[in-house]
């Protein structure tokens, strides 16, 4: 090897040495265990839709790789300070920033390798089960940039404050920050502050995300800009700090002269570029609007993502047809088994649907879910409605058939089935646009569910001394229950259920408009 070739190979050799001695290598078994227990299991419990499964990349996987990576990066960066070898290493040929670049590069090498294997495992498992679409790229890009950013934050902290407490405090601090970001992201809604969209944890998806419409990459782009900007700015700080090691402010200009101008120019450029990118991303986030493809940022938005994705539904049944989106074809059997018996109970009645179709949940549903999760509002989301001529029951993909934590095996359970049937009958017998049926409507719905063989708390306790309600009890402003008691509603349901199917059918045919309008009282139910 010539002297020139040897000199050129040295940075690579330093990098290889750092890779071999990186502490992240020893943390990989722990990361793997956490990944298998948390992210992989969480993803496997989600509905097999690509965008939904991919959401674990920016939530659960970041919670495992991000803080631990930040802590380990801080540990690596504090090495020279811990061992008090700073002065000794100042005498070496290579500048400090080159040593630090190798150490940071090795840390990122192992972190990103482990992260990439995790993403591959999640995607491979999804590919086995998904029946629609393909693997989304943006969650991976956001995840990688976030891991890098957290590692750079940790590395910078470890370089600037090389104490023994830095690494654990950085790890805990970044974990807390990601949880706070998640909480803030849940509260984002039109008209409020939108800065929490910069938190990658906004990717709490609805069950049909990316199914009916493409997920717009706008928010992912600004997240990458924001976090990438932080990383670049911090790299500038690291370069400047390396050149100014143990230099007092009086020696600043002589240090600049001694070290050469370009490290400072590079540091300043990195700082400016990083701050500009993050500021631009922050400003762009403020212009976000909610659209059919999620949060849109006008300056970045491609109108093509607002067009629905064409598909041919999977259907089953003859007199009453049940259709699902092909992404949810695994749910078709359960949906048909649930809806056919209740559809038979109301067949031929005015307004009775002849078909059930799965439709897009829309962004408003996601907002409603977020609000309910935070406990700041009561659930007031309509899950399905009967529209058109001939009447078609349109049910929301996310609300009814496949919530993002749902799976085809859950859809085979009795609870899921009775819930789906109850939603269907509520859309039929309830007043359009209202969430809580009247007591008479509740009695009729419960009786029809019993007749169709549905089993839930309301139908199973119908004949008991303390029956349960199929719907939440209505309370007044002081928290006291209003209207008829559960026992009175159950008694009416038992009465109506005791009628022959023909008599029930005839009464409904005659009184359905009044029942839907809410003018029939509990006592008027036969």
């Amino acid at each position, binding site marked *: 090897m010539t002297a020139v070739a040897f000199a050129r190979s040295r940075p690579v050799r330093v990098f290889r040495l750092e890779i071999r001695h990186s502490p992240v290598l020893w943390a990989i078994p722990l990361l793997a265990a*956490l990944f298998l*227990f948390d992210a992989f*299991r969480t993803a496997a419990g989600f509905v097999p839709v690509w965008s939904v499964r991919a959401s674990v990349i920016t939530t659960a996987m970041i919670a495992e790789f991000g803080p631990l990576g930040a802590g380990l990066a801080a*540990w690596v960066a504090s090495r020279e300070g811990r061992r008090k070898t700073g002065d000794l290493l100042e005498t070496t040929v290579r500048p400090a920033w080159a040593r630090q670049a190798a150490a940071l590069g090795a840390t990122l090498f192992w972190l990103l390798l482990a992260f990439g294997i995790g993403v591959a495992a999640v995607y491979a498992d999804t590919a086995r089960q998904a029946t629609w679409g393909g693997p989304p790229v943006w969650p991976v890009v956001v995840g990688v940039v976030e891991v890098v950013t957290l590692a750079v934050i940790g590395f910078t902290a470890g370089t600037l404050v090389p104490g023994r407490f830095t690494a654990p*405090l950085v790890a*805990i601090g970044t974990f807390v920050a990601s949880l706070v970001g998640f*909480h803030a992201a849940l509260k984002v809604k039109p008209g409020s502050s939108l800065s929490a969209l910069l938190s990658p944890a906004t990717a709490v998806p609805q069950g049909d995300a990316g199914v009916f419409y493409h997920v717009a990459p706008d928010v992912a782009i600004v997240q990458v800009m924001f976090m990438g900007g932080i990383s670049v700015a911090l790299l500038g700080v690291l370069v400047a700090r390396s050149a100014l090691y143990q230099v007092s402010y009086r020696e600043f200009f002589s240090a600049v002269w001694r070290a050469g101008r370009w490290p400072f120019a590079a540091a300043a450029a990195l700082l400016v570029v990083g701050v500009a990118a993050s500021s631009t991303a922050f400003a762009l986030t403020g212009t976000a609007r909610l659209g059919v493809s999620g949060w849109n940022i006008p300056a970045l938005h491609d109108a093509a993502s607002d067009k629905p994705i064409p598909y041919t539904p999977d259907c089953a049944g003859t007199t009453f047809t049940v259709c699902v989106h092909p992404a949810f074809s695994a749910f078709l059997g359960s949906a048909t088994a649930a809806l056919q018996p209740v559809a038979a109970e109301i067949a031929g009645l005015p307004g009775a649907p002849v078909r059930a179709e799965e439709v897009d949940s829309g962004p408003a549903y996601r907002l409603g879910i977020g609000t309910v999760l935070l406990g700041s509002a009561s659930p007031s989301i309509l899950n399905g409605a009967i529209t058109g001529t001939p009447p078609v029951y349109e049910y929301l993909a996310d609300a009814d058939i496949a919530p993002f934590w749902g799976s085809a095996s859950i859809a085979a359970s009795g609870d899921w089935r009775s819930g789906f049937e109850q939603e269907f009958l509520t859309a039929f017998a309830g007043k359009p646009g209202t969430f809580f049926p009247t007591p008479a409507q509740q009695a009729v719905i419960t009786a029809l569910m019993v007749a169709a063989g549905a089993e839930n708390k309301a139908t199973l306790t119908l004949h008991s001394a303390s029956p349960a309600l199929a719907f939440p009890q209505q309370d007044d402003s002081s928290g006291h229950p209003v209207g008829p008691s559960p026992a009175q509603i159950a008694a009416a349901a038992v009465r109506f259920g005791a009628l022959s199917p023909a008599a029930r059918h005839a009464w409904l045919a005659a009184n359905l408009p009044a029942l839907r309008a809410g003018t029939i009282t509990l006592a008027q139910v036969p």
Partner: protein
Amino acid sequence: MTTAEVRTPSAAPGARPAWRGAAGARLAWLHVRSRRVPGAVLALAVCAAVLHAALRWNWTFNSGKLAQQVPMLIEAGAAAAVVVTTHSPFGEPERAGGRWLPYLRLGTALALTGLAIGVVQLGVTAMNLNGGVLQMARNIIGITGIGLLCSLATGGLLAWVIPMGYIAFAQYALTEAWRSPCTWPVRPPDDRGAWICAGLVFGVGLLAFTLRGARQSIRD
């Protein structure tokens, strides 16, 4: 000076207890300083302040099982601050230097754990901490126990890694509503099994650390 003079203390017998007390205090103070305990107290204060801010400005969920997420993390941070003080900068010479080292380790770990509970509790005074002081104390005790055990294998400076992994696992257990006492951070404050688990881990960790000390490596 002869060998006999070196072996025989020159002080009068009556003055020995006072001399011993001062020397003991000085020894304890030197031990505490060498473990950066003052820095740990500062780190605990930072943890308490962050928890105070999180509760005051509602950084996270106010109620329900998820309200435990951030307090649990900060309690883990306090425990991590305790366990990184197990690192000794002296290594073998210190082990050969006297028989008081195990007692100093025991005393420092116990005192700092108690201090961590006290400081974090001080930070949440007049705040609504989900689970209360009992759950907070149990979390700090149990996670410190994991860290002390970890220090035997990784050394004191990296003793925070396994507690960090445990708390990430506990976050998952929290959302999945696991009931195993081994996941004590997600159990109610009066859960006996969780207390036994946390106490056992702390007891074993403390005993092992007292007897063996954290692993020493020249690379630290």
